[in-house]
C-alpha cells in the first residue's frame, strides 16, 4: 500500500504524538530523575550489595520463567491454531486469565495452594521443599504473570501464514521437527521475538504478586521491584528511579538482542 506522503506524515505525527504523551514523557521523566543529581548517586544506588543481589534475583526469575513460558507458548499456540480438540475455545480464553487476576490475589492463590496449610502445603513441607517465601514461589508468580504473551503473539501469525508450506515440506518427506525448525519457526520468529520481549519486560517489572510470596527478606528474596519499593519507603527516590532505569535498560537490551538474533537468522537462511 502506498498512501500519499501527506497521509503518511499525518499518521506518523498522530502515532508519535500519542506515544510522546503517554510513553516518552513518563519514561523520560524516570531517566531524568535518575540522573538529576549526576551519575554518581545513581551509580552508587544500584551497586550496593543489596541492589546487586536484587538485580541478580530478578534476572534469575526471568531466566527461568521466560524460557519455560516460551516453550509452553509455542506448543500451546500450535495446538490452538492447528488442532481441534474438546475444550479448545475455553482453553483459548483461559490463556489470558492470568492478567485478569489482581496481583495480590495471585499471591493469595499461590499461598492457598503451595503455602503452609495450602492444598499441596503439607506434602511440600514433608519433603522439605519451601515454595512460598522463597525463590520457587517467586518464580511461580513470575511465570503466572508472564504466561500469556508468547501464546498470544504467536497465534495470529500462525493463523496468518497458513499450513501450505508446512504441508508441502511434510509431503517432501521432512520430519515434523524439521518442518517446525525450517518452516514454522522462521515464519513466527518476529512474533516469538515480541512475545519473549514482552514476557521479559513483564517479568522484570512484576511487583504485586511477587511481593506477596517473597517475604521481602533483604538480600535474599528481594527482587529489583521490591528493592524499588523499599527505596521509595526510605525516601530514597534517586535509588528507586535508578533501579527502575536499570530495569528499563534490561528490557531494551532484551529487545535489541532478540532483534539482532532475528536479523542474523534471516541472513543465514
Amino acid at each position, binding site marked *: 500500500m502506498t498512501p500519499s506522503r501527506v497521509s503518511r506524515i499525518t499518521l*506518523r505525527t498522530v502515532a508519535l504524538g500519542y*506515544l510522546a504523551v503517554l510513553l516518552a514523557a513518563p519514561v523520560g521523566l524516570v531517566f531524568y530523575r535518575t540522573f538529576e543529581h549526576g551519575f554518581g548517586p545513581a551509580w552508587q544506588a544500584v551497586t550496593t550489595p543489596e541492589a546487586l543481589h536484587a538485580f541478580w534475583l530478578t534476572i534469575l526469575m526471568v531466566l527461568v520463567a521466560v524460557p519455560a513460558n516460551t516453550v509452553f507458548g509455542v506448543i500451546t499456540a500450535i495446538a490452538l491454531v492447528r488442532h481441534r480438540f474438546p475444550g479448545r475455545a475455553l482453553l483459548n480464553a483461559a490463556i*489470558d486469565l492470568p492478567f485478569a487476576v489482581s496481583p495480590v490475589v495471585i499471591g*493469595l492463590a*499461590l499461598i492457598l495452594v503451595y503455602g503452609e496449610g495450602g492444598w499441596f502445603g503439607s506434602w511440600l513441607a514433608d519433603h522439605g521443599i519451601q515454595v512460598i517465601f522463597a525463590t520457587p514461589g517467586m518464580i511461580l508468580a513470575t511465570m*503466572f504473570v508472564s504466561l500469556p504473551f508468547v501464546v498470544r503473539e504467536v497465534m495470529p501469525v500462525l493463523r*496468518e501464514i497458513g499450513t501450505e508450506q508446512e504441508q508441502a515440506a511434510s509431503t517432501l518427506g521432512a520430519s515434523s521437527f524439521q518442518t517446525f525448525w525450517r518452516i514454522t519457526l522462521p515464519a513466527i520468529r518476529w512474533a516469538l521475538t515480541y512475545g519473549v520481549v514482552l514476557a521479559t519486560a513483564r517479568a522484570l517489572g512484576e511487583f504485586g504478586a511477587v511481593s506477596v510470596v517473597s517475604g521481602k527478606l533483604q538480600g535474599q528474596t528481594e527482587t529489583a521491584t521490591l528493592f524499588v519499593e523499599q527505596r521509595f519507603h526510605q525516601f530514597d527516590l534517586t535509588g528507586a528511579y535508578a533501579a527502575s532505569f536499570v530495569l528499563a535498560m534490561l528490557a*531494551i537490551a532484551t529487545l535489541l538482542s532478540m532483534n539482532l538474533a532475528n536479523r542474523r537468522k534471516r541472513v543465514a537462511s
Partner: protein
Amino acid sequence: MPRPTGAAHGRGAAGIYLSLIVLIPLAAVVSKGFDNGWDGFWSAATSPASVSALKLTVVASFIVVAINGVTGTLIAWVLVRDDFRGKSIVNSLIDLPFALPTIVAGLTLLALYGPRSPVGVDVAYTRIAVGLALLFVTLPFVVRAVQPVLIELDRDMEEAAASLGAGPLTVFRRIVLPNLWPAILAGVALGFARSIGEFGSLVLISGNLPFKTEVSSVFIFGQIESDRVAAAAAVSVVLLAISLVVLLAISALSRWAGRHDA
C-alpha cells in the same frame, strides 16, 4: 499430517504446566470465594462498594482497550510501514510500561499529569486518571500483536489492489485490516484482561476514592486488609467470570472476522 502422539504429548505437557501455574491456583481462589457458601459469595460480590468498583473497572477497561485497538494498530503500522529517523528508538521504548515497576509508573504519571503538572494538566484522582494509568500499562499489547503480522503480511495483494485503482484507505480497509483483525483482537483481549487486574500503577494516581475512583483490585486489597479473604476471593471470581465471558466473546469475534474475510 499431524502425528497424534507427538501433538498429544506436547499438549499434555502444556496442560500440566498451565494447571500447576495457573489453573490450580485459580481453582483455589474460586473455592475460597465460596468458603461461606453461595450466600456469602453473593453478598460479598454484590455489596454496593463492590458493585461500584466492578462497574468502574469493567467500563474503564472497555474504553481503554477500544482506544488501544485504534492507537495500537496505528503505532504498529507506523513502526512497520513508515520510515523515519529514530524509528528503532521508538520501537525499543514500546515495552517499557511493563518493565517499569508499577510504583514508579504511578509516581511519574502523577508528576506529569497531577497537581504539580509541568504541562498544566491535572487529572489526578479522577476517573480520567484511572483511564490514563490503564492506557499506559496496556500500551504494548496491541502494538506488539499487530507488528509481527504486518511484517509477515504479503504485500502483493495490496499492490495489486492499488494498481487496480483502489485508494489507500480502501486497500487498508479491504486488504490489510481483515488480515490484522485476529492480531488486533488478541492484543485487545490481553489488554482487557490486564486492565481488569491492574493495581500498582493505579493506586497513586487514582486516589482510590470508594464509589468514585476505586477499582476492583484496590477494593479486593481492602477486603484482604480487613481480613475478609473469602470476600476478596469472591470479588476476584466475579472479575474472572466477567473476563472469561469477554475473552470468549473476543475469540468468537476473532474467529468470525477470520472466516468472514479469508
